[in-house]
């Protein structure tokens, strides 16, 4: 099995380069995930930098660009990938080392949409009730694990990562603007009304195609734009 991995050490290399590994496939389970292959390679070369945690598609820390597509290595079956397998860090973010990228801008954008419930009076002792229908509206909006696969596949985010909120942040924004318990909808929509913040999205739908959780940020952004236009 031929595997090409992008390598970069900030102290030694001027730019990333591809390193080829030959792996004996019989050393891995027949139903192994990509992450197992990467961890196997790290046993061969302990200097390989890779980030992972839960290993079951919940934490979102092992997002990578594999054969040109952003995905989670822990939930991607190895046999679903064509050889040679090209593994690169998520595109559009500064590389810290090898496959590890700096997600600071991504988190800043997420923080900028205030992704938390703003309800007044906020009494932790009291439940904020919703009808089943109101709760149902949040389906497909709250399941994001912040792996950054979507934002890393979005050209608008590549060009302006400090201005454009990106698909993940806008999905979260939509989630809180439609939440029946949130009382700051008008303020939220007003803050999002900017040519660089929300309207930079051109709906090419790379975000939806790359989401490992099957969410649809593009549709959420379209709904958000419609709500900004309507003003509520």
């Amino acid at each position: 099995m031929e595997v090409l991995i992008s390598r970069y050490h900030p102290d030694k290399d001027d730019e990333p380069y591809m390193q080829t590994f030959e792996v004996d496939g019989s050393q891995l389970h027949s139903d192994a995930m990509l992450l197992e292959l990467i961890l196997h390679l790290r046993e061969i070369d302990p200097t390989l930098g890779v980030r992972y945690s839960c290993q079951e598609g919940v934490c979102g820390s092992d997002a990578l660009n594999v054969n040109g597509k952003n995905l989670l290595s822990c939930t991607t079956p190895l046999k679903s990938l064509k050889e040679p397998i090209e593994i690169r860090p998520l595109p559009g973010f500064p590389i810290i080392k090898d496959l590890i990228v700096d997600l600071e801008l991504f988190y800043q954008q997420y923080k900028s949409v205030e992704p938390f419930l703003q309800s007044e009076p906020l009494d932790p002792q009291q439940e904020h009730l919703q009808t089943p229908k109101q709760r149902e509206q949040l389906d497909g909006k709250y399941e994001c694990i912040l792996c950054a696969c979507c934002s890393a596949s979005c050209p608008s985010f590549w060009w302006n990562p400090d201005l454009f909120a990106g698909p993940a942040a806008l999905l979260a924004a939509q989630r809180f603007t439609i939440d029946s318990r949130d009382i700051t909808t008008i303020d939220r929509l007003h803050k999002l009304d900017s040519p660089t913040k929300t309207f930079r999205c051109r709906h090419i739908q790379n975000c939806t195609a790359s989401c490992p959780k099957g969410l649809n940020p593009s549709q959420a952004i379209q709904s958000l734009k419609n709500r900004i236009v309507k003003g509520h």
Partner: protein
Amino acid sequence: MLEMKRLSGKKAHLWQRYSAYYLLIFFPYLGWQTLNFPRYADIQTLLQNQFHGFFAVSSLIAAALLLIHLWVGGRDILIDYSLRSKTVTWLNLYQIILFLITFDLCWVLYASLS
């Protein structure tokens, strides 16, 4: 001078949509008008026909909306692709070019109709 913070999101989005709807109707109509025109007709005759009577209003609206559509589309391209340090300069330059085109169109129209 134009500033980034003064650019609108919602308004630009709406203008781009409405102008697109109008132009979607106007251009097929313009094509149909041109096809039905004699082959030897020059641009002056065509303009005179286009800006005559009832059609003058629809043609003027189309010209104005086309310029607005151009502004929003070009503005978005410049925000996406120009160097951040030069974006405001490019936007101002683009605005001036559109003003010049508007002035030129007015002059052509005046010259054709007079």
